């Protein structure tokens, strides 16, 4: 069973989606390591190292995502996690912005997959299977 780390980054406390992601990915056959809300980059990285996770799914709902994930890819690489897949989803920027641009901004920061508002976790499972298997 592959491990994936999930959590909500920064000063963000939106817990509902996180609990559902946990449930859905577990049901889909992953070993879900849920570090919960209010998690720092370090929390994500240590959890991934400890559990040999193949992917980190960062949630950010509250709008500060763009600031909170700065250098996340670089920090992962430094910690020896250059193979780990980085996903980000939720309401990752402030306000209603053109999603194509937003996606580009986050891909430039090194995220492998970027999800827009209202894209449910169910929509991402195919990608996850593609990227890391089950």
């Amino acid at each position, binding site marked *: 069973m592959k491990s994936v780390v999930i959590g909500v980054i920064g000063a963000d*406390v939106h*817990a*509902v989606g996180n*609990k559902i992601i946990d449930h859905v990915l577990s049901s889909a056959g992953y070993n879900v390591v849920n570090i919960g809300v*209010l998690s720092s980059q370090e929390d994500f990285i240590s959890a991934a190292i400890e559990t040999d996770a193949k992917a980190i799914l960062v949630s950010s709902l509250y*709008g*500060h995502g763009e*600031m909170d994930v700065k250098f996340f890819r670089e920090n992962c690489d430094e910690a020896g996690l250059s193979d780990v897949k980085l996903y980000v989803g939720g*309401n990752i920027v*402030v306000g209603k912005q053109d999603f194509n641009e937003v996606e580009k901004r986050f891909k430039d920061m090194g995220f492998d997959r970027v999800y827009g508002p209202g894209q449910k976790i169910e929509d991402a499972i195919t990608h996850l299977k593609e990227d890391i298997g089950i």
Partner: protein
Amino acid sequence: MVENKKIPLEEFLKIRSEILHHWKTGSSPLLDLDSSVERLKAIPDHKNFAKKLKKAKQQGLTLIQPRAGVARLKEHIELLQFLEKEGEADFLPSTIDSYTRQNRYQNAQDGIDESERKGRSLLNGFPCVNHGVEGCLEVFESVNVPLQARHGTPDARLLSEIIHAAGWTSNEGGGISYNIPYAKSISLEDTIRYWQYCDRLVGYYEEHGVEINREPYGPLTGTLVPPSISHTVAIIESILAAEQGVKNITVGYGQSGNVIQDVAALRTLEEETNRYLKLFGYEDVFVTTVFHQWMGGFPKDEAKAMGLISMASTVAALGKATKMITKTAHESFGVPTKEANAEGLRASKIVTSLLRDQKLADSDELQEEMEIIRKEVACLIEAVVYEGKGDIAKGSVKAFKKGLIDVPFAPSQHNSGRILPARDTDGKIRIFEFGNLAMSDEIKEFHRNKLKERATLEGRDVSFQMTIDDIYAVSSGILVGKPQEEL
């Protein structure tokens, strides 16, 4: 252990002198209490939150208030002026950014600076502590309606000092409602203490002839919260506030989606808050209610969002809430533009205006639902009283620890998080997993039967999947979630 006891003036002033050192804006001369009292006494009635609410209540009106806040002062003022003029807002907020809420004033400062550089707000709210009393006063002087801070701050002591000194005559929050849904590890003892301070500050102003409104935050996680649970928190926080000298309280409730349950909730919220306040010896508190338009996940489609907002307004008006917090067509995407925000306000405004002289007529169904809520609240409050041996503050801490009160989907570790809600056949929120929730067997039986009815109708078991379906439901345009196969 925290106690429901008024903080003695000296102790309050001692804590105060420390608090003001938490960030450099705490040293403003405008934070001198005597001068603040004078400043606040001079506020005209129409800009005083407490007084405007009283008047609205007497006239039977439902007034409206948006959420709104951006990083930069000038932009924030423009935003509020726009919402007053183009949105016809009766009250204005300043929604505070999430760094400030976590007392990360340095992060907030970085956010302001980066927002200045990029020319757009990178913060999800107005960092009022960083802008200080001077900034907040400028905001206050730029608008013609009362101002309130809306946040979600476990420790809002410095924030409260600053906003009140700046003439903002209302503050949202409470020791439970700004902890359980808004924090992970901070203890209830701490946050109750912090909010006793905020209430004591308001009490101080009241003692010196300045009326200030306080609003416990009603909707909690905004996600399938049964009315009795949020009512219980509202009642507890009202009692805690009253003890510190607060005299004008607005208790809140987030729309469930079932009209009868919503109106029953609004009515019992006011009635039971008044009743328990009196029961605990607080005789002279003026209580009003605030209805929050749908607090869960919104539909993406903007027209549908407008439909939802207006439907919520119909319920608020017919339920005779004194205030309503509005949402916008951008809700599912992100912080709204000022235009979208004003549109949400105007759609809401026409509905509450059209319905100002109407209310939902009494009916058996309404009375039954009210009775159920009353009974449930009685169970929960009783548990708190028992745990605290009569002390509501102590009792609350213990009740949460034991899961006797439990909020669904809350991020806090100090919330047991075992209860699971779902909707019954006509959409009323019920509970199927009670964890340790302090409800009588009779009530549990009632809930379980209601949900069994639905399960039978849908040909499936009551389960967490049903809860998930209900969480997704409104954003896909229905109220009661349907089994996957049916979609």
